[in-house]
């Protein structure tokens, strides 16, 4: 029982990191209607930025985290402006998908050129010691990850539902043409979405590498895909859905790794996704869009 609860806590910790990444995916999808395959690599860039500032330059941790957030936000805006915006009204949604893949290759190979392909040891940014509550040991990173994700989701929910830019995002997600007729700048709103999503990716990158300290140019790829799965799980386009999807995915992954098979844990995660989608074809919180003739 003790080990089960420990695993559950670890699952929630990993899941909350997935959740933060998944929110970035889901927001971009909801508004720009594109699968941003480069999102996972933005995580990696954030982690490398923090690593450079903290470990290489020896500056204090908060500076490193701030630098990572600023760096990723600018990167997100740049990617959107240079690579995605020219293709926004292209004939096929596949065009921008392939460009996103190109951006993903670009970031990975750029990082490989700058930092080399060897794995770096990332020192945890969390000063908290491991907490022991009764028989359970809770690592500091776990507490920080879960708290961060809860705070970020709450702030984001308030931002989207209560502020004007947030409302503009909702409007763009619903109907881009109508939103622009109402005087909303669609371009700026989409840029803002990318900026927020990328800033969250930076936070996720720092947390991910604090929990699992190996950092290499491909670090972001698999968590990126998993977070994408989490976003679909919760119903892509829905922020609370991404949170729930991320947490569920993390728990399923850790539990199947602990009790079923280490090698097959990824297969189990994907199998659960397939079952969920077959039962609820638009994910847990997804909206069903009725198709009209």
């Amino acid at each position, binding site marked *: 029982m003790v080990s089960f609860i420990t695993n559950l806590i670890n699952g929630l910790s990993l899941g909350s990191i997935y959740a933060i990444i998944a929110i970035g995916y889901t927001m971009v999808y909801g508004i720009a209607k594109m*699968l941003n395959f480069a999102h996972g690599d933005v995580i990696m860039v954030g982690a490398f930025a923090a690593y450079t500032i903290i470990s290489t330059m020896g500056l204090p941790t908060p500076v490193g985290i701030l630098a990572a957030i600023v760096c990723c936000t600018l990167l997100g805006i740049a990617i959107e402006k240079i690579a995605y915006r020219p293709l926004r009204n292209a*004939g096929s*949604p596949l065009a921008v998908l392939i460009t996103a893949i*190109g951006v993903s290759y670009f970031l990975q190979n*750029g990082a490989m050129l700058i930092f080399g392909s060897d794995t770096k040891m990332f020192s945890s940014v969390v000063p908290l010691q491991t907490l022991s509550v009764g028989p359970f040991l809770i690592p500091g990173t776990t507490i920080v990850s879960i708290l961060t994700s809860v705070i970020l989701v709450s702030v984001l929910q308030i931002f989207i539902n209560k502020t004007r830019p947030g409302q503009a995002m909702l409007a763009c997600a619903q109907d881009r043409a109508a939103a622009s007729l109402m005087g909303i700048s669609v371009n700026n709103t989409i840029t803002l979405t990318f900026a927020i999503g990328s800033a969250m990716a930076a936070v996720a990158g720092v947390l991910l590498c604090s929990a699992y300290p190996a950092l290499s140019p491909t670090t972001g790829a698999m968590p990126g895909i998993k977070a994408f*799965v989490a976003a679909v799980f919760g119903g892509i386009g829905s922020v609370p859905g991404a949170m729930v999807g991320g947490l569920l995915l993390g728990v399923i992954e850790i539990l199947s790794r602990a009790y079923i098979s280490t090698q*097959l844990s990824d297969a189990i995660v994907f199998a659960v996704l397939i079952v969920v989608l077959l039962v609820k074809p638009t994910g847990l919180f997804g909206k069903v869009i009725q198709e009209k003739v």
Partner: protein
Amino acid sequence: MKKILSQMDQTSRNDFITYGMVIGAFAVISILQALGILSSQIGGLLVPLCVYSIMAVSLNLVVGILGELSIGHAGFMCLGAFASAFFTKCVGDGMPSMLRFVIAILIGGLIAGVFGFLIGIPVFRLNGDYLAIVTLAFGEIIKNVMNSLYVGRDANGFHFSLSSANDMGMDALNGEMLINGPQGITGTPRNSTFLIGILILLLSLFVILNLIHSRQGRAIMSVRDNHIAAESVGINITKYKLMAFTVSAVIAGFAGALYAHNLSSLAATSARFGYNMSIMFLVFVVLGGIGSSRGAIIAAVVLTLIPELLRPIASFRMLLYSIILIVMMIVNWSPASRAFMEKHKLNRFLFKFKKSAGKGGK
């Protein structure tokens, strides 16, 4: 030559050019090879080029003709590769190598096709991006399961396990490991040649082009263009979606068999059969002009050769590759550059482009 071409209608002329291009490329390369001009580096790429071209043609059937996004196609290639290599390994020297290879290719296609059909049944209950993510999930599951599959054979027959070699209860001394988990299948004879690769590519093209021009093919395209209208005129949507998907999986299985018999050790690594590979095939299809088999082949060849040709600038080559990819996409697809090209009469440089393709049948 011109006379024959002018007598044909447009579709057959188009197909003829596609076949001619493949055969011509084969002839030129064979001559270069016989003269010894071709570097061994390019020589080693010939079979992979065939494999990638076949995969591009196969995926084009799903993405371009059926209009559904699949990002798990490497999974079918993986199944074909493992099924065929497993067969070759089991038979050993009990059969002439050519006959064994042909049967292995057929088995690779058959197994991939069966799984394509079985996977297609749940997949086509979904649509759009949800369908895409499920194909990705299936691709990853196939890779993952192959990576932890152990199969051995001893006097008592076959033994299987999904956890470790010791778990399958095989006679360790006299038994023979056939599939060894993450190490995969080793010692597969290298039967694949450029000629066989080209023959399979031609066969795949023949099957797909004829399918497209047939009654069934038109039904498949009608599902892509407007599935509601297609259904209302009595087309069984699921049947045609499954048909296209299964045919595509069979061809991917052939490609897998070809791939497996070009390597002495076959392992289901992420680099070989992961989603990255599936995405690469998708890049071929989209860059080649969605829906065009010929374009898919050209894109597959060009995009495989670019990193090789860039080898002299070793460390920058993949970076440059990604930049080329982004620029080519923007130049080809962005409305601004299309308008520019049309204004300056540069239309013929544009890739073929169908508005309806790849929209998930909406």
